[in-house]
Each structure stands twice: as structure tokens, then as C-alpha cells.
């Protein structure tokens, strides 16, 4: 498929616009000199990826991504930033001095993945049925064929919850414990 034929499809304009925004926000995440800005750029990236999911007619996953990332994960990360880095401002020391080697490595990785997937899927066209994946199908899969992974993931979340509380909890010093006992 030539580029001229590709660019005439309106859905590809949408892809280009959303993809560019997503990539730009992704660069923002790794290049921002302010921690809060980096976290907010991740919101843009996740929003872009959710929009791409909508283009791929994966509605439920798109909204789940928005809910979980924008609604929960970013808030959690901002929370962590506030605890560990207040006051927040521009800080040039957020990244190390070694930039060239990571950049080369990342570019090489990108080139490798791109080259190998062009070899494998270069001509594969997506068939757009124009119909979103039914959410009831996803729900059915989660409790029938994937019920064991579903339960395991539930346990992982429970373990993460308990572990997070246990790790981040501050133990009382003996003096504090004594004071608490006295009250």
C-alpha cells in the first residue's frame, strides 16, 4: 500500500493526529524538567492511547484505561511526587548526565522492532467492521475461559494492597508507642 493511498483514508488522518499528540506527550514524560509536568504529560499519552483504542473499536479497554490511569494511577504518582519531592519546581537534576548511550539504545530498539514487524506484518490490512467489541463478550470471557487468570489477578491486587500498606506504613517508635499506651 502506497503512502498516497494510505493518506486518503480519513481514519488515517485521525490516527496521524492522535499518534503525534501521543508521541509528543510521551517525549514530555521523559524530557520534562518538572516532575509534575512529567506526570501530567502521562495523562496526555494515556488519553491518546485510549483514543487509538477507540479507533480500533476497543471501547471498553479505552474507557478502562482512562478510568484506571487518569483516574487512579496518575493521582497515585502525583501523591508520590508530593511526598518525595516537595517543593516541586524545575529541577535539571531529574535526569542523569549520561544521555547519548540511552538514546542510541532506544533508537536501536525502535529500529529493531520496526524492521522486524515490517518484515512480518508489512502488508496486513485491518478490517474495519465499524462495530465496537461487545462489552458483554469481554465480561463473559473474563468469567469463563479466563476465570483462573482473573482470580489470580484479583489476588495480585489484594497482595499489592496489603503489601503497599505494610511497606509504606511508618512503625511507631518505642516512645510514641508508650505515649499512645498512656492515653
Amino acid at each position, binding site marked *: 500500500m502506497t503512502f498516497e493511498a*494510505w493518506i486518503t483514508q480519513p481514519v488515517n488522518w485521525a490516527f496521524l493526529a492522535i499518534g503525534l499528540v501521543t*508521541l509528543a506527550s510521551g517525549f514530555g514524560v*521523559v524530557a520534562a524538567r518538572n516532575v509534575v509536568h512529567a506526570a501530567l504529560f502521562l495523562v496526555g499519552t494515556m488519553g491518546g492511547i485510549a483514543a487509538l483504542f477507540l479507533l480500533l473499536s*476497543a471501547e471498553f479497554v479505552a474507557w478502562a484505561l482512562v478510568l484506571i490511569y487518569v483516574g487512579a*494511577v496518575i493521582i497515585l504518582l502525583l501523591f508520590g511526587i508530593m511526598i518525595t519531592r516537595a517543593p516541586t519546581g524545575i529541577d535539571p537534576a531529574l535526569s542523569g548526565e549520561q544521555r547519548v548511550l540511552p538514546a542510541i539504545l*532506544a533508537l536501536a530498539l525502535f529500529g529493531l522492532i520496526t524492521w522486524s514487524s515490517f518484515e512480518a506484518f508489512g502488508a496486513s490490512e*485491518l478490517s474495519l467492521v465499524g462495530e465496537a*467489541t461487545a462489552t458483554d463478550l469481554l465480561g463473559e470471557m473474563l468469567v469463563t475461559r479466563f476465570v483462573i487468570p482473573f482470580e489470580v489477578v484479583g489476588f495480585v491486587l489484594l497482595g499489592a494492597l496489603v503489601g503497599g500498606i505494610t511497606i*509504606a506504613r511508618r512503625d511507631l517508635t518505642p516512645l510514641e508507642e508508650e505515649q499512645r499506651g498512656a492515653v
Partner: protein
Amino acid sequence: MTVIQYVVLGAALFAIGVYGLLVRRNLVLILLSVELMLAAVNLNLVAFESLLATSEALGQVFAIFVITVAAAEVGIGLAIVIMIFRNRQSANADELTLMRW
């Protein structure tokens, strides 16, 4: 629409995540880069689901699993970062040299 455009975008996001993981010093920002990489993988899963069009929506189910595990990972990761910060008054990866001689 071809599948390759999504795969290339996913690869670019993943590479950006790798770059951030290697360049950043702050532990919270390293976690952010890991989130970026996981999101790139999700994009690939959903794109290939769209290509294969399985009757069971396998790619999307796995994307949901990845999102869930990423949420658990960030919770635990932040708890560890907060604990490290409390013990060492620093959240920079290159200052954690306790295990190095």
C-alpha cells in the same frame, strides 16, 4: 488502516519508555517510564486483536490483565519509593549505593 502503523507507534512509545527508564534519576519518574512501556504493549495487544479478530477478543482481555497488573505494580512501587525516601531522604536511583562497594 494497516496494523503496522499501530505497531510502529507502539515501538516508538516503548523506545521512549526505555530511554526514560535509563536517563531518569528520580525513582517516581522511572515508574512513569515503566507505565509508558506497559501502555505501548497494550497498544500492540489491541492492534493485533483488531488484526486477528478472534471471536473471543483475546487481545483485549489480555490488555485488561496488563492494565490491572500495572496498577498493582505502581502501587507497590510507590510504597517502596516512599519507604526508601523515608529511610534515606532521597528518591534518586544513583544515590542508593548501599549495596555497592
